[in-house]
C-alpha cells in the first residue's frame, strides 16, 4: 500500500492551493528560435505549454515523459532557474516570480535541486568539504566549526565517510558523487527538492542505492520532492502521484498506483506497454506508437498526441483537450477518457 499522508483529491484551484507547499499555475515557457542568420523571428519552441499542478507537503510527485516533453524545463522554472513566458509558481502561497533578488535568495534556501550528472555538477577544483560548506557560507549559517560539523554530519547522513571532506570529486565513483549531490541539496534544510533524472547516469546496481537514500532523506526531513525521470519503473516505485508530460503538457496526472494500473490517456498506456520487463515469460500487449514526437515548434491542431495515437478519432482534431478529472484525484487530457 502507499505510505505517506493522504493526498488531497481536490481539483486544481484557480489561485494557489491553501494547503499545498507548491502550486504551479498555467506555467508556460516558449524559447524563441531563428532559422539561419536572417531567419524569420517569431518561431518559438513550446517547451512548457500551460502546466498546472499542486505539490503537497511530504509528497513525491513523479514527472515523466520522453526527451523534449518539457519535464526538465518545468523543474527549472519551479526553482526559477529560468524565467517563465507566463504563469505562476507559488511556494507556500508566494509567487516566486514576484520575489526580488534578496527575497529570492532567501527562498532558494528552501528549494534545492539534484542534477542528473554528478560529474558535471560538482566543481572539480573544490574539495567535497568546500563544496558542501559553500551554501552555508553564502547563507551566513553558523560559524566555521559549526559549519564543518554540519558538513560531516551531512556526509554521514548520505552514507559517506565524513573523513572524505578533503578529497576532490574525481576521487569518487558515480554513485558516491550522486550521494554528494544529495548532501549538497540537503545542506540548508530545504522543504522542496527537484531531482532531475538523479539516477539515470548510474549503473543499475548503484541506482537502487541512491533511490533508497532519496527515500530515506525524504522521510526523515519530511521533504516534498519533484522527481523527474524517464524511467517509468523508478517513478512508479518512488512517487505518490505521477504526472505524464507530452509536448509541453501534462496529459495525465494521478496517484501512482491508479495511474499505472488503469492509465486513462492512450499515451500513458503506450508508454507502459513499451517498458521492457525483465521476465521473458511476462505476458505483454504491445502498443507500438507510430512515428516520432512532432516538432514542438509547429504544434499540431487539436490534441497534441493525435499523430501518434492508436485510438484517435476525427473529434480529436477539434480541440486541444484540457486536463480534466475523470476519477477522484486522477485527471487526463483526452476526450476518449471522459
Amino acid at each position, binding site marked *: 500500500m502507499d505510505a505517506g499522508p493522504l493526498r488531497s483529491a481536490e481539483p486544481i484551484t484557480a489561485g494557489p492551493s491553501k494547503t499545498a507547499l507548491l502550486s504551479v499555475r498555467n506555467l508556460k515557457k516558449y524559447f524563441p528560435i531563428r532559422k539561419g542568420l536572417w531567419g524569420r523571428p517569431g518561431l518559438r519552441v513550446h517547451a512548457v505549454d500551460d502546466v498546472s499542478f499542486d505539490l503537497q507537503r511530504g509528497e513525491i510527485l513523479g514527472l515523466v515523459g520522453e526527451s523534449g516533453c518539457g519535464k526538465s524545463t518545468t523543474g527549472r522554472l519551479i526553482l526559477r532557474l529560468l524565467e517563465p513566458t507566463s504563469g505562476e509558481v507559488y511556494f507556500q502561497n508566494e509567487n516566486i516570480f514576484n520575489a526580488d533578488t534578496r527575497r529570492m535568495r532567501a527562498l532558494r534556501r528552501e528549494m534545492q535541486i539534484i542534477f542528473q550528472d554528478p560529474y558535471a555538477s560538482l566543481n572539480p577544483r573544490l574539495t567535497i568539504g568546500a563544496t558542501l560548506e559553500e551554501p552555508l557560507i553564502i547563507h551566513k549559517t553558523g560559524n566555521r566549526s559549526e559549519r564543518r560539523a554540519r558538513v560531516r554530519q551531512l556526509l554521514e547522513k548520505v552514507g559517506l565517510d565524513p573523513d572524505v571532506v578533503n578529497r576532490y570529486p574525481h576521487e569518487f565513483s558515480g554513485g558516491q558523487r550522486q550521494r554528494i549531490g544529495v548532501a549538497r541539496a540537503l545542506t540548508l534544510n530545504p522543504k522542496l527538492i527537484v531531482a532531475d533524472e538523479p539516477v539515470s547516469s548510474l*549503473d*543499475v546496481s548503484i541506482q537502487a542505492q541512491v*533511490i533508497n537514500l532519496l527515500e530515506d532523506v525524504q522521510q526523515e526531513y519530511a521533504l516534498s520532492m519533484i522527481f523527474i525521470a524517464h524511467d517509468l519503473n523508478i517513478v512508479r516505485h518512488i512517487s505518490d502521484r505521477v504526472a505524464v508530460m507530452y509536448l509541453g503538457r501534462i496529459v495525465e496526472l494521478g496517484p*501512482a*498506483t491508479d495511474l499505472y494500473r488503469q492509465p486513462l490517456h492512450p499515451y500513458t498506456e503506450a508508454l507502459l506497454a513499451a517498458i521492457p520487463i525483465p521476465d521473458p515469460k511476462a505476458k505483454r500487449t*504491445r502498443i507500438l506508437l507510430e512515428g516520432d514526437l512532432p516538432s514542438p515548434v509547429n504544434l499540431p491542431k487539436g490534441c497534441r498526441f493525435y499523430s501518434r495515437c492508436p485510438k484517435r478519432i476525427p473529434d480529436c482534431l477539434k480541440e486541444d483537450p484540457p486536463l480534466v478529472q475523470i476519477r477522484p484525484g486522477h485527471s487526463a487530457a483526452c476526450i476518449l477518457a471522459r
Partner: protein
Amino acid sequence: MNPAVLSIKNLRTQFHTDEGIVHAVDGIDLMVRPGSVLGIVGESGSGKSVTALSVMRLIPQPPGRIVSGEIWFNGTDLMTLKEAEMQKVRGKRIAMIFQEPMTSLNPVFTVGNQISEMLRLHLKLSRKDARDRTIELLELVGIPSADRRSKEYPHQLSGGMRQRVMIAMAISCNPDLIFADEPTTALDVTIQAQILALLEQLRERLGMSLVLISHDLGVIAEVAHEVAIMYAGRIVEEAGTEELFAHPLHPYTQGLLASLPRFDKSGGRGERLRAIPGAVPKWTEHLPGCKFTPRCSVAISHCAQQEPPLKEIRPGHRVRCWVAFGEQT
C-alpha cells in the same frame, strides 16, 4: 565441425595505463548460434563493449592489446587474419550498431551517401545501383519518404531515425552477424520499442545472428535467446534466457534482478529496493578470488582466496560461484 557463427575462446584483452595493466576482458568464451540472439549484460567497465571491439579487431593499439584468444567466425580464426583481410569481414560479414548514432555517422555526408559508400566499397556496386539499393534499405528499416531522407544529413534526423539509418547501414551487405552495443539506450522508451521490434523483424527475415549488448535486463529478456552476464571482465553466468531469468544462480545476477524496481510488481512508496552494496572493483584493484566477493551477501571464505571456474550446474546453465556449486566454507 563448428555449428556456431561465432565462437570465442579464452579471449583476453588488456589496456596498458599509467596505473598498470587493465584486464578489460579476462578469459571469456562465447558462442553465437546461427540465427539466434545472444544478450551480453554488464555494467560500465564489465568488458562487454571491449568484447565486441575485440571481435571486430577494433581495439586501439596501443594502449590496448588482444593478449590471447581465438575468434572463430564461420570457420576462420579472425585473430589470424591480416588487417586487409579483416577489413573485408568488418562491415560486410560482421556489422556493428553503436549506442549513439550521431557519433558514428559522419556529419558532413548525407545519410544516403554513407550507405552507398558501404555498398560500393564492399559489394562493388555501381553508383546508380548503390543509390537504388540505399533507398530500398531505408524503406526496409521503416524510414518514410526514403528518397528525400537519403539526401539529408545526420543532424536533420531524430535519434530514432538516425538509429534506423545505422541499422540500414549494418544490414546493407547482408552480414551473418551484427553486434549491437546498447542500440536503444539513448532512445526514448516508445522509440526503443520500435527499434527493438525492427531489429527482431529484420533478423528473422534476413536470417542474421545478433549479439545484443545491454545493461537493461528488460531489453535482454525481450530480445535475447541466450544470455551471458559479465562482471569485471569475466562471464559470471550464462544460460538460455528463460532459464536464466527463472533460476538466476549467481549472486550478482540475483542482486541485479532484485534491485530493479518494476512497475508491474511494485508495492510503491515505502517499499525498499534491495540494492547491491558497494561498487564495481577499480581496474587497479587486484582480487585473487571471485571479483564479486566484496559486494556479495553470501560469500564464504573460499571466495576471496580462489576464483571459481565457469561450471555447468544445471542443463545448459553455467555459473562462476563457489556457493552455487554447493561449497560451505
